[in-house]
């Protein structure tokens, strides 16, 4: 795990790892239980579905070992459910580490899985999905069944990715789960930082702090720059409503609100994932679990 990178007692960049079982959901041995495991470069997610309905999921930080991360997060998703890995009829692996999910029956790219997952979370009206992951950004156009129509990726540069945000949270000593809200605490939106490179944006930020800018203002400037990049990517793939945001940064309200302003369009509302709603960070794993169901059913046909 990369946890030893910061030696301080409070690790600002660390976001919450957790698992959840959907309230009121059950499973029986007659049900078709499938799983999706999404091993990203920063976060690993696993989802268990019962007959295509979300049952439980888990999110952990990806360690240095992909197969182990896959195992760990799947165990998290299974925790307290009474299920074992052997109860899962079909498992699809996805994400950057998809070829290293040892228990998977098949690997499918995260592009297809996020489109499918977004369709599951928000419904058939979704046409554009922005997935902001740990180390890349994807803009996906999908149809009413959640199938990919076209896509664009930006993975040549860490700017705008979750890692970039972690670096800033660490720099400004703000817990990462708060940076979204804090970036909005400005009276007037400052100009965006000019350096997109995370390493240099950090230096630029330090310079701004020296000039007397508040943390909020610096964060706003960086967040705006990143939101502009993401909006550009969406425009290049072609924006069609409804637009949704998945991946870790979907929880960054500073990014989401700015994208909405720049594009002049409102995203579909975020489910209340803290309580009993589906977590958009898990969209890829949901999509993978749904593909698992379809593939299993296809295999059963004579």
């Amino acid at each position, binding site marked *: 795990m*990369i946890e*030893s*990178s910061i030696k301080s007692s409070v690790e600002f960049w660390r976001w919450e790892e957790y698992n959840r079982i959907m309230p009121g959901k059950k499973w029986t041995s007659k049900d078709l239980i499938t799983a999706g495991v999404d091993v990203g*470069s920063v976060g690993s997610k696993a989802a268990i579905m019962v007959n295509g309905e979300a049952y439980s999921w888990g999110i952990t930080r990806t360690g*240095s*070992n*992909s197969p182990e991360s896959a195992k760990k997060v799947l165990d998290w998703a299974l925790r307290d459910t009474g299920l074992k890995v052997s109860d899962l009829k079909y498992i699809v692996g996805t994400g950057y580490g998809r070829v*290293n999910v040892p228990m998977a029956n098949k690997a499918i790219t995260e592009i297809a899985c996020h489109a499918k997952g977004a369709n599951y979370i928000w419904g058939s009206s979704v046409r554009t999905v922005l997935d902001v992951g740990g*180390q890349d950004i994807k803009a996906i156009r999908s149809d009413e069944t959640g199938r990919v129509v076209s896509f664009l990726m930006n993975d*040549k*540069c*860490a700017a705008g*990715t979750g*890692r*970039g945000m972690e*670096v800033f949270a660490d720099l400004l000593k703000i817990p990462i789960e708060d940076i979204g809200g804090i970036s909005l605490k400005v009276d007037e939106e400052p100009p965006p930082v000019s350096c997109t*490179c*995370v*390493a*240099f944006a950090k*230096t630029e930020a*330090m310079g701004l*702090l*020296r000039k007397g800018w508040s943390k909020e203002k610096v964060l706003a400037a960086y967040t705006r720059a990143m939101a502009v990049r993401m909006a550009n990517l969406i425009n290049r793939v072609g924006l069609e409503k409804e637009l949704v945001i998945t991946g870790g940064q979907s929880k960054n309200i500073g990014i989401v609100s700015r994208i909405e302003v720049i594009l002049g369009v409102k995203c579909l509302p975020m489910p209340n994932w803290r309580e009993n709603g589906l977590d958009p960070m898990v969209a890829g794993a949901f999509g993978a679990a749904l593909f698992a169901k379809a593939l299993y059913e296809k295999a059963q046909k004579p």
Partner: protein
Amino acid sequence: MIAVGMDLGTQRVKAVVLKDGAVMSRGQAFSGFDPTDAAEQAVEEALKQVHLQKADVAYFVATGSAIEMAPYANSTVSMMSADAKAGIYLFQNARTIIDVGAEEARAVKCDENGVMVDFVVNERCAAGAGTFIEAMARALEVKLEEIGPLSLKAERASPINASCVIFGESDVVSLIHRQESKPEIARAVFDAMADRISSMVHRIGVNPEVIVVGGVAKDVGFIASLNRKLGLNVLIPDYPDYAGALGAALIATSRAKEVQK
């Protein structure tokens, strides 16, 4: 005649005190959010060591990336000129000076008088400077001062993404998972850096003697890779991270003399 040179770098401020052109003392402080304050501290520290005060100093010259934040300076000088001057002072035969700092690398070509003749800067990418090593050491979960010696144990290097600090980090992580040995990964880090820096230096031509200064010069792993890449043995002075401040101080000395005339 006392002259002081200050080098306001992105990570640290270094100060050097010269008396009649000879090094008396050195001081440093972390730049943090306030390089001006750090510069004051660095100079104070250096002066205290030889029981001097600011008032005793005839001339201050500032250099470095945060040059405009110098608390007091009679004049400034570019890092390139400072490097050239320091290079000749430290090694009479120095003709190419490579300065690798925390966030920037540069190479300077000079003549036998320490006059800068050509230079090239690599500022667009953090992957060619000290930041890269720090990030990779973190990813490898070794101390910064250990990654150099570690790399010397390797006979070959694993392939890593040398184009971005962030991606390089995750490459390192996945190499560890693929059970590549840490020494080989460490060596890859230095080979990648040496590669970039060597390309940069070739643009102005590699004229021996080549000396390397800046904080990164202290890293044995980097120097080993650089020697391999350049096909020669570079020279490293003592206190290589003070080269910029030394150069500034030497220039302060000659400028003070000009003023006195």
